[in-house]
């Protein structure tokens, strides 16, 4: 290798093999997460220093059991390795295998090896050979697999240097295939393929043919020729099966010579833990307890940093207002951009804590047990056991939750999960619930222990989950979507989570949320700011109109300033929008002021509280009415003469917020994930109508 060269390395491997540990070990924190162009699968790349002059760009490809993909993520592996013009097309592939499941790992290896790209096999967890009762002869394996085989332990940093050396010398690796794709499967068929595509190696053509629907890289004549071979789908399927059986036969022949395993060793922990964790009774109790701990932590632990962030951004806004010259631009920064960013940052503590738990549950192997426990239950509601993760994540924020639905294999099950996840009570609903509950539910205790306010909140959570399941059931019955769903999951070994891996995962996921969803939330905040701070003539002449109306006003008094702000909001574009929807929302017990808050909730639901704070800032002559809650409590409904936030209208609002799809960020993600406007629009109108009807009934019955 010459001076300052870069080698492109792709890491490939089954899930749960420690591939990510190896990636972290090779690159340290020198890594970044981006997106593959055009699709939203996250792409992890990092730099590793191999020697003085050479470094490697390492791509951590999504974990997969086979090169034949079943999910969007797995498709990346195929696309990257089959397309020589792909930016990440590697100089060398490192296949990471787990010593315990070596057979299954070698299936992927044998597929990869046939791509005729230099390939190194790194066998991980080699430090546990004795403990697991395994003996393996690397020298013979090297010969049979026609490439370099290296024993490593990513967690204990063993064998990493030898692996780096092997990557450096990748040009000398044997790129011959293991010779499975050949006449042994169907001599006649493969001869025809070779005749049609004489310049490609046979496996490339074979994948082009069998995976045409997942590739989309072929054009013109080549595409036509491929279609010709795809005519007999049944035959292709049969050949794929034959291929897999032959590959395993070869692997078994190879392993017979050099791999021995005493299966009595090392399975104790699995069976002991499985006995409790998926027990028909204790299994659910433990899962329930874990959920309880997660929710408790998400809400309790997160309050401190959230309050801090809230305050810090308010201070930052004020400070910026002080140091910058007066004008539109300053307003944009202090009233649009800073609160907009604050509105994203405030979610970080909850989301990070939730991701931390999810990462730990996945790293330990427990999540697969939850999927196993819940699959049958979730299937009744049109979902899969794998839908549990998105539904739990939805209690923090629906956006990352919907992205987590990618792991679900069947399209229908995945779609239903995406559609119902926004029903779960996300953290943006909490501030709305909190303030309304405080206003309308008395601070009393039920049976002496349960606080009524707490019970109301709990009920709202329950309504969230129940409506997610119920709508899943309806969609399952009425949605006509063609989809073949299947369910095959690995039940991995239990292991202690690695601190480094867990933290890196949390960091990445949080970053993905901030920069992905954050952009949308920020943009909407700025639009709403514009609508609230601009308006037609009445808005522009607000000061003159107010001055002429109230002669004795001291224009420096706080009262006047608040009156002005409120007048301006009323006559701003958003105020006009609020007024124009008033006739529609009146039957629910809301006035135009709440209308404004409903509209601005589209940026993020919790904006409701801040918007009302601005609107109700008027009329607070009473020195005591300083907090938002007090102002809201004092608000009078001019028509009834009673309180605006009474029990019926408050309950109606709670119900409305529980059901309505008021989050543009979520709608944008659903559009991206389903690749169609049909589904986000179904959510918007379906959930909107449901919210409207239930809020109407609530208000009518209660008042």
């Amino acid at each position: 290798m010459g001076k300052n060269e870069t080698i492109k390395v792709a890491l490939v491997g089954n899930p749960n093999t420690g591939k990510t540990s190896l990636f972290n070990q090779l690159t340290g924190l020198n890594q970044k997460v981006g997106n593959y162009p055009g699709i939203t699968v996250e792409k992890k790349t990092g730099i590793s220093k191999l020697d003085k002059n050479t470094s490697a760009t390492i791509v951590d490809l999504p974990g997969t059991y086979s090169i034949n993909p079943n999910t969007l993520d797995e498709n990346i592996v195929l696309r990257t390795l089959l397309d020589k013009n792909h930016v990440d097309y590697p100089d060398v592939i490192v296949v990471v295998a787990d010593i315990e499941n070596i057979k299954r790992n070698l299936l992927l290896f044998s597929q990869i090896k046939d791509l005729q790209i230099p390939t190194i096999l790194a066998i991980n967890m080699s430090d546990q050979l004795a403990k697991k009762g395994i003996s393996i002869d690397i020298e013979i394996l090297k010969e049979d697999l026609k490439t370099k085989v290296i024993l490593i332990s990513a967690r204990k940093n063993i064998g990493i240097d030898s692996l780096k050396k092997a990557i450096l010398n990748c040009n000398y690796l044997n790129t011959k295939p293991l010779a499975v794709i050949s006449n042994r499967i169907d001599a006649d068929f493969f001869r025809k393929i070779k005749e049609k595509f004489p310049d490609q190696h046979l496996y490339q053509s074979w994948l082009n043919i069998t995976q045409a629907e997942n590739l989309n890289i072929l054009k013109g004549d080549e595409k036509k020729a491929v279609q010709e071979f795809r005519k007999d789908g049944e035959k292709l399927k049969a050949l794929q099966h034959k291929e897999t059986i032959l590959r395993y036969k070869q692997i078994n022949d190879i392993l017979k010579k050099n791999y021995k395993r005493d299966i009595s060793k090392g399975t104790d922990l699995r069976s002991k833990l499985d006995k409790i964790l998926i027990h028909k009774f204790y299994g659910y109790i433990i899962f329930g307890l874990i959920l309880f701990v997660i929710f408790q932590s998400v809400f309790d632990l997160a309050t401190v940093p959230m309050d801090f962030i809230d305050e810090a951004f308010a201070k930052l806004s004020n400070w910026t207002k002080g140091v910058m010259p007066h004008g539109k631009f300053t307003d944009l920064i202090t009233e649009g951009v800073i609160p907009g960013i604050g509105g994203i940052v405030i979610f970080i503590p909850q989301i990070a804590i939730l991701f931390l738990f999810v990462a730990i549950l996945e790293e330990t192997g427990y999540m697969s047990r939850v999927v196993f426990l819940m699959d049958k239950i979730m299937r009744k509601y049109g979902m899969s056991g794998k839908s549990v993760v998105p539904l739990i994540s939805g209690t923090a924020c629906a956006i990352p939750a919907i992205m987590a639905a990618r792991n679900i294999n069947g399209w229908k099950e995945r779609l239903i999960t995406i559609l119902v996840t926004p029903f779960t009570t996300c953290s943006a609903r909490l501030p709305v619930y909190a303030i309304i509950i405080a206003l309308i539910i008395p601070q009393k205790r039920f049976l002496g222990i349960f606080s009524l306010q707490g019970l109301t909140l709990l009920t709202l959570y329950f309504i969230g989950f129940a409506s997610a399941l119920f709508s899943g059931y309806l969609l399952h019955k009425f949605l006509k979507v063609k989809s073949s769903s299947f369910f095959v999951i690995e039940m991995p070994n239990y292991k202690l989570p690695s601190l480094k891996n867990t933290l890196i995962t949390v960091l990445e996921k949080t970053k993905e949320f901030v920069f992905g969803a954050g952009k949308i939330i920020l943009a909407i905040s700025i639009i709403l700011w514009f609508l609230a701070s601009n308006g037609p003539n009445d808005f522009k002449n607000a000061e003159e109109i107010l001055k002429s109306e109230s002669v004795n006003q001291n224009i420096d008094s706080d009262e006047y300033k608040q009156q002005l702000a409120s007048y301006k909001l009323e006559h701003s574009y958003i105020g006009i929008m609020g007024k124009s929807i008033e006739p529609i929302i009146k039957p629910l017990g809301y006035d135009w002021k709440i209308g404004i808050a409903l509209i601005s909730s589209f940026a993020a639901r919790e904006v409701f509280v801040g918007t009302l704070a601005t609107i109700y800032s008027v009329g607070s002559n009473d020195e005591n009415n300083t907090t938002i809650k007090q102002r809201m409590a004092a608000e009078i409904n001019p028509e009834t003469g009673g309180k605006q936030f009474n029990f019926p209208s408050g309950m109606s609002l709670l119900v409305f917020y529980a059901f309505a799809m008021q989050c543009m960020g979520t709608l944008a993600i659903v559009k991206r994930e389903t690749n169609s406007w049909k589904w986000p629009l179904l959510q918007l109108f379906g959930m909107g109508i449901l919210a409207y009807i239930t809020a109407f009934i609530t208000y009518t019955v209660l008042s």
Partner: protein
Amino acid sequence: MATTIANLKVGERGVIEDLDFDFVPLILLEMGCLPGIEVELIQIAPLQDPLYIRVNDSHLAIRKETAKHITIKKF
């Protein structure tokens, strides 16, 4: 005795004889569920589905609807 994985009791084993590929996805084959391979039913989920099996050193969970299309010869 020929039967399917769906009919095994916990702890019972058998050898896979045939898979009906109209119902069994390729991935299951790729994960090691092949004719001639020994399979053991480790546990059944509390609601009788899915099934937790060990096959070819892999521990997998599959649904009954798939399992009943995998014919085995019971030990």
